[in-house]
């Protein structure tokens, strides 16, 4: 069976909209509004290119419109009048609702993983992050299991309220904070970072962030006020051990995947 060019165009558009609004959000994440608009416009443009690719297909596509505009039949005449009234009203309605929805809060762009400082002052001691490619407790392989176990206890005494039992950022206090606590299981957090980066973020917390990362909003405590250096390394080891992620290893050139998003 041969589909009419109108049905083909409509089906293409519907499939595209289905992919943008159902398939993509299911597979990854919902498409932001403006980008969504651009995708639909691109799809419409592609359909236009297709229907105007030959004289014949364009003629087939446009002929009903022409019928509507010109034909003097008993059906087309009243239909023409209805369309001429309804279309301007729809345009008017669309334009005015567009203006009514105009109170959106300022959406500041927040850098999620800012560039870390080259060194941090931890409880009075200067630590050069570049010189710590991997966690120092990993050198003590014989006791690594003990360190991880201790990290687990520290996590449950301090972190799980927000970051949750499942390390997914869904602890029982998580809903009070904005931005939401980090999801360690996700591929975009600790899996992208080195252990010394985590050390900096834990030790200095929200207030230690640069201003492009909105330190005033972050609920992350300054953990150097609560934990020792070793305890922070232990809890970091626990996070990687439990999630199964591998920490990124920082090379000496300082090339670390901490750039802004």
């Amino acid at each position: 069976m041969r589909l009419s060019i109108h049905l083909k165009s409509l089906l293409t558009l519907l499939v595209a909209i289905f992919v943008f609004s159902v398939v993509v959000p299911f597979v990854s994440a919902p498409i932001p509004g403006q980008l969504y608009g651009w995708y639909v416009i691109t799809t419409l443009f592609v359909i236009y290119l297709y229907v105007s690719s030959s004289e014949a297909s364009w003629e087939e596509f446009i002929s009903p419109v022409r019928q509507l505009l010109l034909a003097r039949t008993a059906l087309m005449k009243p239909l023409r009048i209805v369309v001429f009234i309804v279309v301007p009203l729809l345009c008017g309605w669309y334009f005015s609702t567009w203006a009514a929805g105009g109170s959106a809060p300022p959406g500041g762009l927040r850098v999620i993983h800012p560039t870390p400082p080259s060194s941090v002052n931890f409880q009075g001691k200067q630590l050069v992050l570049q010189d710590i490619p991997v966690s120092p407790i990993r050198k003590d392989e014989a006791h690594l299991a003990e360190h991880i176990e201790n990290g687990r206890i520290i996590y449950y005494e301090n972190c799980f309220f927000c970051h949750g039992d499942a390390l997914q950022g869904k602890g029982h206090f998580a809903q009070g904070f904005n931005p939401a606590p980090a999801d360690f299981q996700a591929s975009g957090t600790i899996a992208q970072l080195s252990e010394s980066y985590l050390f900096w973020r834990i030790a200095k917390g929200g207030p230690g962030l640069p201003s492009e990362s909105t330190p005033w909003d972050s609920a992350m405590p300054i953990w150097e006020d609560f934990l020792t250096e070793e305890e922070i390394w232990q809890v970091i080891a626990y996070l990687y051990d439990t999630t199964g992620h591998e920490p990124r290893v920082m090379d000496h050139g300082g090339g670390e995947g901490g750039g802004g998003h």
Partner: protein
Amino acid sequence: MSEQRITRGRSVSALACCMGVGLWLFLSLLGASPVNAQPTEADLEAGEQIYLQRCAHCHGVEGDGVGASTDVVYPKPRDFTSGVYKFRTRHETEEGNWLAADSDIARSIREGLHGSSMPGWETVLSGQQIDQLVHYIKTFADVFEEDTPGLELSFANEIASSPESIARGKEIFETVFECHTCHGTDGRGNGEEALAGLEDDWGYRIWPANLTKPWTYRGGSGRRDIFRNISLGIAGTPMPPFADPDPMAEARETDDPEEKQEIEALARELQEDTWHTVNYVQSLWTYPQEPEVKATLTAKRVDGALPMSPDDAAWQEAPVNYYPLVGQVIQEPRLFASMTVGVELQALHNGEEVAFRLVWDDRTESAPGESEEMETYGDAVALQFSSKPLSGMEKPYFLMGDASYPTDLWYWRNDPGDAVLTRTQGAGTFQADGNAGGLVSQGQFDNGQYRVVIQRALQTEQTDTEVQFPIGAFIPFSVTGWDGSNGEFGGYKRTVMAWYNLYLEPEPSKAPLYLLLVGIGFGLIVEFSALFVTRKNHG
């Protein structure tokens, strides 16, 4: 003909396949995988591994409910050595034990206990792992070896909700089951018994559920969940069972058909009364589930004087935003076991003044020194704003600001009940007193709920050091609360929330009207151009 039949045969089997897969998906979504009655040694070992990795930090390596986080959560993790599980679908056994079926325990693990620190594990553990865990945690209590779970609870004679059923349910709530003695007459968990002090079987102070917030019902808020809790109680807590374990026992013993009928009618009536109560409990809900947090609180513009009383009908005009409040666990001393769940916020303005209405549930109207066991304080709430005008994206630190970005707190406490302006430069600088700051307030405590209105002029003379409210701009605000009888006071021990935006509605704009006209014109131009071009070429 035959080809058609084959096609139809194929589509029938395809349909059957689809239905089969659908049914399987449905059952697995329900989590209906039956727990194996007899665990193998390997199951128990696997269960132990999962337990040590996932559960022991709260419930203890020995299963006694003593783990790393026991001291810092409310309610406390369950002690498995008791064999007492909160949520069961089984009656008391003949031996007098309240044993949970394996599927009951599996459900608590799978879905978690809502509003507590016990999460649902279904995103982390497989159905098989949860079954293994069930077998393992049962080994902590001998009672599971000595006895088997009792009769299954019957959910029969369900009554759909209706105004009559709700009215009957209220009667039963207050006069038959007397639920209000603990849950309070408005269901906010503030009954007399609750205030006198309820304890669980381990001697910890616990509070009855606030029935108006179904997302905090530990065992779920489905109709059957509520029916189950009323019928069988919550084991280990003061919530008693109201159902008869075997209502037909007497009926079986008698030969008199009339007596038999009477007993059956009574059993039926108890079930129906329980369903009426379920309908009443559901009618107490403020929201069916935890409301989504809205990024913007819109202060609606109204004409004339703003309402001063929290119960003024004018407040029905203003949109209501709900915000969860959580313990301040960021700076020492921290508040781990917070009791306040969230606050409802509304705002109105008239171009000259702005009024806020804050509503939150608190079981106790607290006062300093009311308890001999612990230090208590007054109940309080505060709206927080930036003291300085803000430019760009910078804001004060959300926990009471710092030296360069101080915050204005509009602080209201139940005693004396007048809001004051207090300025902070970090939590350590918080003072629970201040000056009037142009604030006018009115608040009341009513049966487990605070309702407070605070008003001020939009603009003051101190434009650089006091918060100003320009119309049409987004102004960061947040709310913080203190439950005095929970030991909350000062800059640290309190419940907090993140910054959100307040937006003062401008005067109704004429833009939509103009744009309507522009849109109609646009549509007409497009249509007539098309008509003109087509006629010219083809007419």
